[in-house]
C-alpha cells in the first residue's frame, strides 16, 4: 500500500518525496530479489543448485553479498579522473530509477501519471550510456575504455529501433500516456496488432540491458567487465543494482506497452490486487524470458551487432511505421495491422535466417585401419 500513500497526503512536496522513497525502496528490494532469481534460474539451466546456504533456498544470499560489498574498500586507481570516476555509477543509476516515476503499475498506482510518460522514460533511460562512457574513460584502463566505447556505440544504436518500435505503437494508440496505451489494450493487447514492433522492442531491450547475446560492453571473456573493471565495493554494486533496475524498467515497459499491462485480459474493472498481479506476472514473464536468453546464447561480435541493428532492425522499424501510417491514413480495419505487421515479422525472420544460416558443415571422415575387426557391440550402440 506504500504507493497508494503517495497521493493521499496532499502536500505536493511530501507527496513527491514519499513517491521517490517508495520507488527507491521497492526497486532496490526488487533488484535484490532479481539478483537472487537470476542466480537460481542460471543454476537451474546449468544443472546447479545456486545459492543454498544463506537462508532458506539461499534467499538471503544477495543481502549477504550486499553487506559484503558495502563493507569493501572503495578503491580508485591513482591515475583515474577522480570526479568523473566517482560520479559515473550515479549517472547510470539515476536514470534507471527516475524512469519509474512515470510508470503506472495499476490503473491508479503511479508516482506520476505523465501525459508524455513514454517519451519521458525513453528520454531518461537513454542517458545511461553517458555513465558507461564516463566510467570507461575515467578508469584509465584500456579494457574499461574499450568497454565504455562499446557501450556507447551499442546503447546509442539500439536506442533508435527501440524508440521507433514505440513510435509505431503510439501511432496506433494516439497517445504517449502509458495509461492510455494500456487502456487501449482492453480487448486485444498490442503484441497481437504489432508483432514486428514487439519483436524489435524485445531485441533492442536485450541490447539496452547488455545481456547475452548483446553483452559486448561488459564481455567477461574479452574486456573482463568493461567499464566496471576498476570499480569495487559500493560503487560497483551501484552499477550492478542499476543493471537490474533497468531490467525491471524494460520488462515493465514491455508488459505495459505490448502485453496489455493491468487491463488485458481481465478488463479495467478488475480489483486492485488482480491488476497488480497481472502487471507483475507479465513483467516476470519478460524478465524470465530475458534471463533464459541470457544463459542459452553466446555473444555476438561488435560488428555483427552493429550491422544487425543498422541493416535489419532499423529498416524494419521504419517499415512498421510506414505500414501503420498506411493503415491509419486509409482507415483500414484493425486486423490489417496484424496482417501487415505479421508479414513484416516473417520478413524479419526470413532476413535473419538468410543472413546467419549456413549449410551444416560435414567433416571428411577417413577410416583408419579398415581391416581391423569392429565388434558388433560398438555398432549397436550407434557410434
Amino acid at each position: 500500500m506504500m504507493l497508494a500513500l503517495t497521493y493521499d497526503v496532499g502536500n505536493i512536496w511530501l507527496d513527491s518525496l514519499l513517491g521517490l522513497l517508495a520507488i527507491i525502496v521497492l526497486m532496490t528490494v526488487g533488484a535484490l530479489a532479481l539478483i537472487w532469481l537470476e542466480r537460481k534460474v542460471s543454476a537451474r539451466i546449468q544443472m546447479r543448485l545456486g545459492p543454498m546456504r544463506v537462508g532458506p533456498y539461499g534467499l538471503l544470499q544477495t543481502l549477504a553479498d550486499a553487506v559484503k560489498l558495502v563493507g569493501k574498500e572503495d578503491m580508485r586507481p591513482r591515475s583515474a579522473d577522480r570526479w568523473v570516476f566517482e560520479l559515473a555509477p550515479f549517472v547510470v543509476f539515476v536514470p534507471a530509477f527516475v524512469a519509474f516515476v512515470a510508470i503506472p503499475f495499476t490503473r491508479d498506482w503511479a508516482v506520476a501519471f505523465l501525459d508524455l510518460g513514454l517519451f519521458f522514460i525513453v528520454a531518461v533511460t537513454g542517458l545511461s550510456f553517458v555513465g558507461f562512457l564516463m566510467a570507461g574513460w575515467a578508469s584509465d584502463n584500456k579494457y574499461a575504455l574499450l568497454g565504455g566505447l562499446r557501450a556507447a556505440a551499442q546503447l546509442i544504436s539500439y536506442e533508435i529501433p527501440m524508440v521507433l518500435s514505440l513510435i509505431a505503437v503510439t501511432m496506433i494508440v494516439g497517445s504517449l500516456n502509458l495509461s492510455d496505451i494500456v487502456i487501449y489494450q482492453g480487448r486485444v493487447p498490442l503484441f497481437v496488432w504489432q508483432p514486428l514492433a514487439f519483436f524489435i522492442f524485445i531485441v533492442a531491450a536485450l541490447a539496452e540491458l547488455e545481456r547475452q547475446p548483446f553483452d559486448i560492453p561488459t564481455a567477461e571473456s574479452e574486456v573482463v567487465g568493461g567499464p566496471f573493471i576498476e570499480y569495487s565495493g559500493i560503487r560497483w554494486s551501484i552499477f550492478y543494482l542499476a543493471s537490474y533496475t533497468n531490467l525491471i524498467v524494460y520488462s515493465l515497459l514491455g508488459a505495459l506497452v505490448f502485453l496489455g499491462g493491468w487491463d488485458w485480459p481481465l478488463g479495467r474493472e478488475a480489483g486492485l490486487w488482480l491488476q497488480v498481479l497481472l502487471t507483475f506476472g507479465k513483467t516476470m514473464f519478460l524478465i524470465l524470458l530475458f534471463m533464459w536468453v541470457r544463459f542459452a546464447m553466446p555473444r555476438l561480435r561488435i560488428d555483427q551487432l552493429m550491422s544487425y541493428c543498422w541493416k535489419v532492425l532499423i529498416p524494419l522499424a521504419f517499415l512498421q511505421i510506414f505500414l501503420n501510417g498506411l493503415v491509419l491514413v486509409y482507415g483500414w480495419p484493425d486486423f490489417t495491422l496484424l496482417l501487415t505487421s505479421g508479414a513484416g515479422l516473417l520478413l524479419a525472420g526470413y532476413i535473419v535466417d538468410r543472413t546467419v544460416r549456413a549449410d551444416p558443415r560435414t567433416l571428411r571422415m577417413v577410416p583408419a585401419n579398415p581391416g581391423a575387426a569392429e565388434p558388433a557391440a560398438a555398432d549397436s550402440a550407434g557410434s
Partner: protein
Amino acid sequence: METVDINVNMGPQHPSTHGVFRMVLTIDGERVMDVEPHIGYMHRGAEKLSEEMDYRQAIGYQDRTDYLAQFMNEQAYCMAVEKLLDIEVPERAEYIRVILCELNRIASHFMFLGAFGIDLGHFGTSFTYGFREREHIQDIFEEVTGERLMYSYFRPGGLVWDVPDNFVQRVRDVLPKSRQGLQDLDMLLTGNEIVSVRSRGVGVMSAEDAVSWGLSGPLLRAAGVEWDLRRDKPYSIYDRFQYDIPVGTHGDVYDRYLVRVEEVRQSIRIVEQALDQLPDGPIMPEKMPRKLRGPEAEIYSAVEGARGEYGIYLVSKGGDKPYRLKMRSPSFCNLSALRDMTIGNYVADAVAILGSIDIVLGCVDR
C-alpha cells in the same frame, strides 16, 4: 584524422587466456593489428629436472605438462623408456593404456567444448555441461589411480597396479553418459546461429601453412591434412581398432570445434572395442630390473595427444638417468601460429581463436 593504435595487455591474469598466458594486442579500434604472445610464466624446468631423476621418478613431471591429457604424456614417456630399454609391454597393460588414453582424450575435449562456449560468450552453461561429462570420467580415473589430476599410473613396462575389478563395467556405464552429454553440447553449440557466425571463417589456416607451422592434432586435421599419429605412425595397439579420422574442409575455428566433437565420438568407439578385447594377464613384464639402466641411444617417441603430437626426445649416455629429455609439446607448437591467425580479426575473434587452439599452459611452458 590521426589515430593511434593502443596496446592492450591481455593476461597473464585474464579469464580467457586459459592460464598464465599473456598477449599484447595492438588494436586499432576493435581490430587487432598485431599480437605478441608472451609465454614462460609457468616454466618449471621439467626437462632439466627430468635429467636429475631416474627413469621412473620422472613420470610425475609428465603429468604436470599437459594436465588435461596426462595419460598420453605418460604414454609417450613410457614408450620412449621402453624403446630405450627394449621392454615388451604385456597385452593387458597396452589395452588398459589405450582405454585410459582415449577416456582422457574424451575428458580433455569435453573441457575444450565447455571452455570454447565461454570464449564465445556463453555464460557458463556450456562449461557446466562439459564439466559434468568430464567429471564422470575423472571419477573412473580416481578409482583406477587414486588421483584426480596427477595420475603417475603408467610405468616403463606396464602399469603400476591393475585396474579395479569393476573397471570394465564402470567404463561401460560411463560411455553412454558421455555420448548423451556430447549430444547435449552438440545441440547447445553446433547448430547455434551465433556460434556459427562467430566461428565460421575466423582464424583460417590453410593446409600448407598448418604444415609449415608444425601444427598437429585437431588444428592440423581441421586444416584438411589427414594426419593422425595413431594411424600414420602406429604405436601401442592402435592398429587393432576401427575408427575414423575427422578431417576439416575450411580450417577455421568452427572446423576445429567440429573435429573435436567428432573425435570424442571416435574415442568412445575405440574404448568400446578395447573393452571388448581386453585380455587377462599380467600388467608388468615378468622380469623388470629394479634399476632401469639404458644403453647409449637417442630415442624419439610420440603419441597423438588430445592437442596434437606429444613427443619425447630422449638422449641417454648410459646410466639410470636421461642425458637430455626434450618434450615436444603440441600446445607450444600450435600456439606459435596464433599471430598469423589473429592479425586482421576483431578482439572478440582473438579470444575465440586462442580458445580454438586449446592450449594448456603447463604444456606450453613445461
